[in-house]
């Protein structure tokens, strides 16, 4: 392509990490007797029980779409919760985007978001690529602490501030770990094989081809976002390619964990945050081959600073058993109260589901906003049915009217916080709360809305989504 030919580029990015950050040394301590586990430095982002690949991709997308409304939506993940239910369609509804947008899910390997990004850059239309991962891993496996949970997003437009100036792809059925429907958790192959051949045969050749395509050299790269198949491979990749720029993908692995399909776009966001206009950035995604993209930074890219801030906005925890429970590696007996039926009726979901996942309330003819909508408004002087205009509440500031930490009610991560939330536009909703920090919640607290799993019907493998109130500001991590 070359530096003067790339026109389409990245207009905005998003990065989302769960509140909880496991201190990896806690896992090492818990596993000390066994000699199992992996690295014990840094933190491992840990999704709440009510988060999954979709919710984290949605949160990242909210950052990336605050200034652009895409007409194409691509969801990328290797841990999509559903087999037959389009995540991109759900994402579209969660973001309240027009239903005539084109949607597609991509998967198959952890490179998929980068592949989709490249397709978008070579295609047409304002496109959102959103990725989320919450990958199942068995306790004791090195992946359990090396991997993390999170979401990332990028929006591609014709005039994006980071323009594509070169790329290269390599397709290769390269098996560095075993994971399938029959065995969803990763089964690792010998590390030395991966470290030696993945760099030599897959990553380095693709990077070199992309550099050539862009007409730049390794020395021209100011920031890299090169995903390592395994922790600690960056040094060999750097040596093989000659790139000495800081690799934000490695930094992300240390601070949060390997985010799988969400990793490359998050690392790209970090690179964009660190870059100056004129800088050249190299992005490489690995998995069943490699895609390498080279960008020239023209100006600031929206959302990049927020992605960086997410690295340190969290709550460190060292409770290894809680970590095991949250990651689904132990199945605690929560007693009879946890047995309640959570079946979702498809007919009900069809009638009300869009208003739920989009958090759409209604504004009556006198301007009062309520949730959910009703035929006769809740407004005390309403005297009959009125038409209601859709009003999205997801981004409306709100405060708590009442609150409690319920320790009787079952929740997979007690206590169960809930209460009455008053929105600035007049709406109020009795809601569940999430992401409690050490101080919990109290009346008058400012809260922000987060898309979360509302009900999880394990019997039928189904889940519904709704919004929950979270503290408006997250704590800053103090190591």
């Amino acid at each position, binding site marked *: 392509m070359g530096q003067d030919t790339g026109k389409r580029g990245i207009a905005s990015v998003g990065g989302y990490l769960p509140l909880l950050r496991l201190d990896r040394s806690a896992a090492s301590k818990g596993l000390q007797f066994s000699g199992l586990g992996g690295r014990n430095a840094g933190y491992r982002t840990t999704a709440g029980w009510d988060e999954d690949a979709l919710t984290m991709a949605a949160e990242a997308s909210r950052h990336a779409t605050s200034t652009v409304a895409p007409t194409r939506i691509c969801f990328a993940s290797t841990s999509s919760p559903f087999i037959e239910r389009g995540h991109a369609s759900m994402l579209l509804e969660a973001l309240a985007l027009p239903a005539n947008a084109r949607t597609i899910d991509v998967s198959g390997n952890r490179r998929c978001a980068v592949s989709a990004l490249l397709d978008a850059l070579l295609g047409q239309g304002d496109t959102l690529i959103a990725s989320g991962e919450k990958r199942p891993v068995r306790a004791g496996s090195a992946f359990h602490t090396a991997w993390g949970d999170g979401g990332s997003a990028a929006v591609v437009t014709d005039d994006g501030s980071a323009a594509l100036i070169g790329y290269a792809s390599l397709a290769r059925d390269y098996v560095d770990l075993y994971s399938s429907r029959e065995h969803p958790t990763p089964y690792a192959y010998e590390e030395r094989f991966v470290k030696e051949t993945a760099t030599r045969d897959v990553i380095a050749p693709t990077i070199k081809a992309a550099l050539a395509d862009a007409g730049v050299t390794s020395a021209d790269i100011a920031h890299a976002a090169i995903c390592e198949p395994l922790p600690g491979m960056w040094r060999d990749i750097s040596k093989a390619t000659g790139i000495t720029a800081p690799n934000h993908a490695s930094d992300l692995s240390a601070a949060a964990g390997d985010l799988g399909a969400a990793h490359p776009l998050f690392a790209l966001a970090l690179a964009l945050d660190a870059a100056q206009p004129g800088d050249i950035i190299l992005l490489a995604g690995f998995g069943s081959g490699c895609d390498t993209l080279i960008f020239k930074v023209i100006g600031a890219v929206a959302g990049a600073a927020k992605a960086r801030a997410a690295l340190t906005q969290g709550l460190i925890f060292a409770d290894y058993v809680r970590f095991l429970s949250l990651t689904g590696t132990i199945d605690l007996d929560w007693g009879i109260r946890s047995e309640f039926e959570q079946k979702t*009726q498809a007919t009900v979901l069809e009638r009300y*589901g869009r208003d*739920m996942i989009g958090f759409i309330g209604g504004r009556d003819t006198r301007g009062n906003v309520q949730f959910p909508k009703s035929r006769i408004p809740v407004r*005390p002087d309403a005297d009959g049915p009125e038409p209601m205009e859709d009003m999205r509440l997801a981004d409306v500031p709100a405060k708590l*009217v009442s609150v409690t930490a319920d320790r*009787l009610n*079952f929740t997979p991560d007690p206590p169960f916080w*809930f209460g009455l939330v008053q929105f600035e536009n007049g709406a109020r909703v009795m809601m569940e709360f999430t992401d409690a920090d050490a101080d919990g919640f109290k009346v008058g607290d400012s809260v922000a809305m987060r898309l979360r799993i*509302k*009900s999880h019907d394990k019997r039928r493998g189904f889940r519904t989504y709704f919004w929950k109130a979270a503290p408006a500001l997250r704590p800053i991590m103090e190591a």
Partner: protein
Amino acid sequence: MASGIKDRVAIIGMGCTVFGELWDKGPEDLIVEAFEEALADAGIARGQINAAWVGNALDDINIGNSALPLAHALRLKSIPVSRVENMCATGTEALRAATYAIAAGAVDFAVALGVEKLKDTGYGGLPLRTKGLANDLWMPYGSAPGTFAQLAGAYTARHGASSEDLKRAMAHVSWKSHRNGALNAKAHLRKAVDMETILNAPMIANPLGLFDCCGVSDGAACAIVTTPEIAKGLGIANPVTVKAIQLSASHGWEASYHEWDGSSIRNTQEAAKRAYAEAGISAHDLSMTEVHDCFSITELVTMEDLGLSAEGSAIFDILDGRYDNNGAMPCQTDGGLKCFGHPVGASGLRMAYEVYSQLLGRAGDRQLANVDFGLTHNLGGQPANSVAAVSILGRLN
């Protein structure tokens, strides 16, 4: 113009089972026991019963749908029998239906019976919902203590009260109910508990500790009603009469409109206002109350909602002993939901049973000296979405 039903309905018989974890009794046993006591008290033949209403809140794990469990248990011979349900206000709802039937002149003798068999769930507390319908897509799955605990923070925020004072007042509410329950042979919990134990109990839903919460019980209560004229004909010269019976239900204002501050229960206020008007009395004319103390914070807030304490002063009235058995306005002389127990569909009628007993001087060790009017307050749902029933009972003359 409606004139209300004051003194148009007499209660001539009441019955109430022991409440508790009645492992060896089924719904039929409970129904029959409560009814037979009421029937004997009324002094009429069972064949004279013209209509019956059964109140039962949680049919899924309970007595079964419809009126048939009552009709079968009592072998009511082809008379009109209906089941009513209004969450925890179900018992009063059954009484309201029977009372209105008498007041309307539709029948001579009607039965209201509330029953609940809750201890077949396998755990404490109320059964969990099993619907999967529209509200489940967004409403929190909060427990009953969780929904009522919301009152506490909102109350302290509104009145500037300290959390410590509130906690002590709530503890006093429970301390009082335990003391009263110890005097009641039919109560589920009959053990007095000291303040320290209450204050240091494990937390259930902040700031409600274990002793701030009533449990759930098995039990039944029953009333037989007729007209004062028929009662006199039966030799009851000065029967207990219904002075008022009112109900107020949420229409969504609290949880979906921006005015409510979460610190009080408007349906209690509305039902009470109408009940006082129907009875032609004020709050200060009452001799006693039996209120819906599902949680200690509920009783505290209810004292204000009923107009018995000024806004923001219930904490201090409670701590001063105003609502103790020897106080100016005794509340829960029978131990209340907290200690008599809470078989949901029966609770409203259990409250009426205590007021009826006090009015007739039958309350034994807990009998109050002078009882002219007694109020029952039966609350269903949660503060943000409730049904409140308030009734006032007294003597005809």
